[in-house]
């Protein structure tokens, strides 16, 4: 068997990694609160619409909900799935390429197949 190497962290490395972990935790909690807040806002908007509160027409609510949904997807990917950290360039490239094709191909279908 190959030897297993143990590398001890120096005190400086230890404190750096602790600080990083703390920062990452803080941003996770902050984003989590933001996402809960967005969800509450979304539900309140729909609730207001159902109760005929003036100003909450569906032409305002539906685009806003889509916007919130997009923000939530972004937060999910970048904070909870750690895409904001280093070394995720290639997965990001493939995901965005896939998303772009997934958007463009159906777009052409609705414009030139079922025109």
């Amino acid at each position, binding site marked *: 068997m190959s030897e297993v190497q143990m590398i001890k962290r120096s005190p400086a490395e230890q404190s750096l990694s602790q600080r990083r972990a703390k920062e990452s935790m803080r941003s996770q909690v902050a984003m989590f609160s933001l996402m809960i807040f967005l969800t509450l806002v979304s539900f309140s908007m729909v609730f207001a619409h159902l109760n005929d509160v003036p100003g909450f027409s569906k032409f305002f609510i539906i685009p806003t909900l889509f916007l919130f949904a997009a923000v939530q997807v972004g937060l999910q990917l970048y904070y909870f799935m750690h895409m904001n950290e280093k070394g995720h360039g290639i997965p990001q490239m493939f995901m965005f390429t*896939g998303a772009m094709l997934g958007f463009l191909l159906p777009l052409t279908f609705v414009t030139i197949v079922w025109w």
Partner: protein
Amino acid sequence: MSSVAQKSGFGATLWDWLTTVDHKKIGILYLLGGLFFFVLGGIEAMIIRLQLITPNNDLVSAGLFNDLITMHGTTMIFLAAMPMLFGFMNAIMPLQIGARDVAFPFINSLGFWMFAFGGLFLNISWLFGEVPDAGWTSYASLSLHSPGHGIDFYAIGLQIAGGGTLMAGINFLVTIINMRAPGMTYMRMPLFTWTTFVASAMILFAFPPLTIGLFFLTFDRMFGGNFFDHTMGGNTIIWEHIFWIFGHPEVYILILPAFGIFSEVFSVFARKRLFGYTAMVFATVLIGFLGFMVWAHHMFTVGLGPTANAIFAVATMAIAVPTGVKIFNWLLTIWGGSIKVTTPMLYALGFIPSFVMGGVTGVMQGAAPLDYQLHDSYFIVAHFHYVIVGGVVLAIFAGLHYWWPKMFGTMLNELLGKITFVFFFVGFHLTFLIQHWLGFWGMPRRVWTFMDGQGWNLANFVSTIGALSMAIGFTVMVINIIMTTIKNERVGNDPWGDGRTLEWAIPSPPPFYNFPATPLVRGLDTLWIEKMEGSKEMITPAEPITDIHMPHGSIIPMLMTLGLFIAGFGAMFHQETSWGLGVLIFGLAFTFVTMAIRSLKDDLGYYVTKEQILQDQENIKRGRN
């Protein structure tokens, strides 16, 4: 299990090849499988040309002719060209980036067996006498109404083979992203590795649409679906879109690795660094990207409307720009080089004018108004044979001669290689150049025979003679391969003498763990840098020699695929027989059981010890002196 134990005997050898997960052996399997189907597709092509040698010929019946053209196209694209390119990718790409194997050796083996069984499934249709006959594109408006099981063989056979391709593509992507040797940055990767990377990314995005299309077709034909049946609310045009969303990237998946092979050959035999490396990489990526935006140019005459046609026409012509960048870079690589005209170099030199001709006719068809004239004529046949034979097949032959020593440890005969080239190259132009004019003179493609007195007789005769010349060339190559194998004269690390990339720094064929110590890469053309510095060992190691972790071989990939193969027959016969459904369920269950075995049984691999590696090194050194 230790690799020191050398098994021998026919049974043990066969078992070794059936269970291998070594990328070099799988590469050889892909190559041999591809060659086998290349011969099959070639025989079909010869019969097609012999049928068309004279007007009103009745060598084959009209129905058989449809079978032949369909199987010729399908076999050549899916079962000959792609597997042979995969063979080179498997055997060479990990060596070029300094890796010990691909990222997922088990999946690599699975990919090969799915190709092998898928191809077998497709060709078993000949034994049943019910052969796919709706063309290789198998447009749904025609294929849904084809009687017998022909199209079923097409749908299921390609489904199995396509799954294998997808696995191979993902495997290459992960290998290139994760397993490059220290110092091998993206912009130091050899062009063949780059094109493998881009082609694999295209496979990743292009093959799922094919899978979906084939499932739709399978459901429509075998399970009462109505995806493409307009009388039941389906849409027959969707198949054409889905097929070409896959199909157009597919032709770039074929040509990009071919570009990669030629880039290697040009720079080695012109003994110069590849001109405009960065531009070459950029052009490769751009071609890969644009390849997804042009599929509707196959459907100009479907009636998409002038706006859609104009958009796709412009996008199509845009691809000529990065391709032109590549052509000029190759020319400037040769320019002022110290050129050695070896067999691979001959193919590369022949490739440039041939492929440019195919490219120019491609731009002609990209102009939508002209395409209305050219559509479904022999001009189209001439065009795509110019790009695929003049590009991909020449590249495969060049690669075969170029990397044969690395894969098999022997050198193909140069004289016979050049004879092959002359017969094949002359035959190729003789066959297909005249077909442009046949198209202009009004001969439609996919016709079984033609009447006398239309002025097509001489052109068709010339075309058939050319095809025979190609067959002679290929036969000489097979003789060359057999003779070389029998003579078995072993060669050293770098038999061409001018190798620039890492694969030429290790023995031919390399030891099964490739590199005793992972190499350190200090720039583009790694080996060339070492040579210029007068390095003795030709490799700067990035680490000391330690034990190497290697995967065990496994028969499970073959069994997994066997299950799918059996299930395919069940799906095909379930409507008319009582046993069909049972066979379908049994086959799928068999596959799931083998998958479960793979998941539940831990296979931790084994270690090649440091002592054995040092011993091997010693043996190699002694063998050299």
